[in-house]
């Protein structure tokens, strides 16, 4: 099968419709969640109060759940289905199962969203016990998770069927990456699923009286860190296997890309304690062990950095630019499919470095739960990941709708990216500095006990409102672009840009596709990092906590 020809062949309508449904939910979420973010920065500026008695923490919960859990999950699953469809194909039966997954997730999302909007779940997206939301919130979340598993197993099945038909061949790189991401997702979300189904749902319904708070938090963060890698890996897929095609080059190294993904699978999960570094009840030695494992998960990102620069340089040099940085100037800066993800890559430099600081054991006290953390993940997920997703959407949406990314829309995309860069630079920088000065995250406007320190914080909160406003303009423009690409752009064939391997590239070692081995090591690492501390936590449990409804405004 010729790669380039396949890149230009549109999906059958039936398939495209499934993948597109996920994109609709993604962009509706962007608008709703983005509006909430705008309102938050307004409230925190101290110049604005919410109308109709709307609670700050209601919109904060909507923002976190809709953008952190819904937008990301829907985009990822839709994109990954498209990648699987393109590389290994989808059968009628698999597509139907895909639809079941979609509807289950959508019903769960709507359930959770309505519960939040009517003020029955002001618990933020981390829903820490013993704050008790209405059971419908937890049931909605459970449906989203189980729905996503159905997609994961469909993807596993797709590759299995392809492998049977292509004995002895290595799986297509992008399909391999999708499977890694879904394996990680299933293994990690088991933790939160256990917590929601066994702890939260019976407790919120009144079937059990109390909940073990520390166990629920530990299960949440067992899931919470791989969650951020679940967002990041699709961006890495684009960086490794799609961007090279867009800039007119080839894969840097098929095997190194696979190796990086395997390392991400191994080390993304046994690291949840680095979110719990300042918590009581967890032995600091075990915290430190997970800090060490956290540093290991940096390594595949170091590899990724090298491989991206190398792809740029090799491509440029093949085109004949021999000076030291000549290749850099000649990158396709005017092509939004490249430019948006590129800005995302740049944002990952401070984003990644900030992450290393956050995870550095006792040093975490410097930034824990300050707005520095919010600034950090607005660089990583809301810039690196999101701009790469936008970069994908610019070609994926027209490929699915049978339209073209015109010059004019491309230009709008470039403007969108610049708006985003400016807005986020202002907002995230202000958040980082305010955080280092001790300003807390997740708090409505407050003057606390007054004084100079608080005044300084409020100054930075004003800057965040300016940044937030610019970002919201960026969101409106992105929604406009999405609508254009979906309904109004001229008909045609937009390429699905998958990079090919160099003809004389080295063979990929077979061991990289030994799933039993890698899943086995993943589970062994998790068992090592969690068994003893988890037994400790359970053995030294205090009395459980009853549900607390009034602090979140429930009667």
């Amino acid at each position, binding site marked *: 099968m010729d790669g380039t020809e396949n890149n230009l062949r549109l999906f059958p309508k039936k398939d495209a419709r499934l993948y597109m449904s996920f994109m609709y939910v993604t962009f509706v979420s962007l608008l709703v969640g983005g509006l909430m973010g705008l309102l938050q920065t307004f409230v925190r500026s101290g110049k604005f109060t919410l109308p109709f008695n709307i609670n700050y923490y209601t919109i904060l919960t909507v923002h976190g759940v809709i953008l952190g859990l819904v937008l990301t999950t829907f985009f990822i699953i839709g994109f990954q289905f498209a990648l699987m469809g393109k590389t290994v194909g989808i059968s009628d039966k698999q597509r139907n199962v895909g639809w079941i997954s979609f509807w289950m997730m959508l019903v769960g999302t709507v359930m959770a969203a309505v519960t939040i909007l009517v003020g029955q779940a002001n618990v933020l997206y981390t829903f*820490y016990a013993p*704050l008790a939301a209405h059971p419908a919130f937890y049931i909605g979340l459970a449906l989203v998770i189980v729905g996503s598993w159905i997609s994961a197993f469909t993807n596993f099945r797709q590759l299995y069927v392809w492998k049977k038909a292509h004995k002895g061949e290595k799986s297509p790189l992008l399909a391999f990456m999708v499977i890694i991401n879904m394996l990680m997702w299933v293994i990690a979300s088991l933790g939160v699923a256990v917590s929601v189904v066994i702890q939260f749902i019976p407790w919120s319904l009144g079937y059990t009286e109390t909940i073990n*708070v520390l166990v629920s938090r530990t299960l949440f963060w067992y899931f919470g860190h791989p969650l951020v890698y679940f967002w990041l890996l699709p961006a890495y897929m684009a960086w490794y296997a799609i961007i090279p095609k867009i800039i007119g080059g080839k894969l840097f190294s098929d095997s190194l890309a696979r190796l990086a993904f395997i390392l991400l699978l191994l080390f993304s999960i046994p690291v949840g304690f680095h979110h719990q570094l*300042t918590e009581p009840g967890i032995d600091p030695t075990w*915290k430190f062990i997970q800090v060490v494992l956290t540093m290991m998960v940096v390594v595949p990102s*170091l590899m990724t950095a090298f491989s991206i620069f190398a792809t740029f340089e090799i491509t440029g040099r093949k085109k004949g630019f021999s000076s030291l940085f000549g290749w850099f100037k000649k990158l396709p800066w005017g092509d939004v499919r490249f430019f948006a993800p590129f800005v995302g890559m740049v944002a990952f430099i401070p984003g990644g470095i900030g992450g290393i600081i956050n995870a550095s054991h006792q040093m975490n006290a410097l930034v824990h739960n300050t707005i520095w953390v919010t600034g950090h993940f607005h660089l990583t997920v809301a810039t690196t990941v999101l701009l790469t997703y936008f970069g994908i959407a610019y070609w994926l949406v027209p490929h699915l709708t049978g339209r073209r990314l015109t010059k004019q829309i491309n230009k709008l995309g470039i403007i969108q990216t610049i708006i985003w860069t400016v807005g986020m630079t202002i907002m995230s920088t202000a958040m980082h500095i305010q955080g280092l000065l001790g300003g*807390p995250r997740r708090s409505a406007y407050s003057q606390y006990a007054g004084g100079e320190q608080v005044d300084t914080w409020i100054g930075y909160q004003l800057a965040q409102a300016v940044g937030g406003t610019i970002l919201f303009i960026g969101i409106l423009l992105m929604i406009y672009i999405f609508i254009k690409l979906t309904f109004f752009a001229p008909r045609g064939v937009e390429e699905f840009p998958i990079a090919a391997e160099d003809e004389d590239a080295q063979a990929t070692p077979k061991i990289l596709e030994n799933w039993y081995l890698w899943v086995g090591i993943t589970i062994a690492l998790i068992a090592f990092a969690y068994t003893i501390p988890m037994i400790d936590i359970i053995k030294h449990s205090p009395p459980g906590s009853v549900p*607390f409804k009034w*602090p979140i405004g429930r009667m």
Partner: protein
Amino acid sequence: MHLHKYEKVWLTFGMASLIIFLLVIGFAAFWKGTHPQSHLETIDQNNVEAHDSFKPENLGLTEVADGKYKVNIVASAFNYDFGVDKDEKPVKTIRVPQGSTVLFTITSKDVVHGFQVAGTNVNMMVEPGHISRYEAVMKNKGEFTIVCNEYCGIGHHQMFGKVEVY
């Protein structure tokens, strides 16, 4: 699977940096004892007064030795209980001299809270059933806001106090 020689240098440099970071914080944590707050003691959150530190008369600031203080606090939505002053009014500000060593001990009666003396390294989670404890030297003069930095409900941002280092 081949690594370019520059990639080998780069990965060696990167991994060496990470190892140095770990050695620095590991040495500080295990030899100097500056682990993040990880107190292991549990308590019945429904009866915190049974614990000596949280009896009403033991709340707030106490000087235990020259330049050494302890501060006991009970957190609840949406208040820090630092005890009462001579006029039976609730204490909201803790005053200690520069350079003093202060041991903060805190627990929660209801939901999860945070306790951060903003601008210092005192930053801990406070959870029902657990006691959090952190000792810090107040190196710098100034007014430091105490904030609840873990969401605890709709009045979360109204939960605060102050430390004055003079």
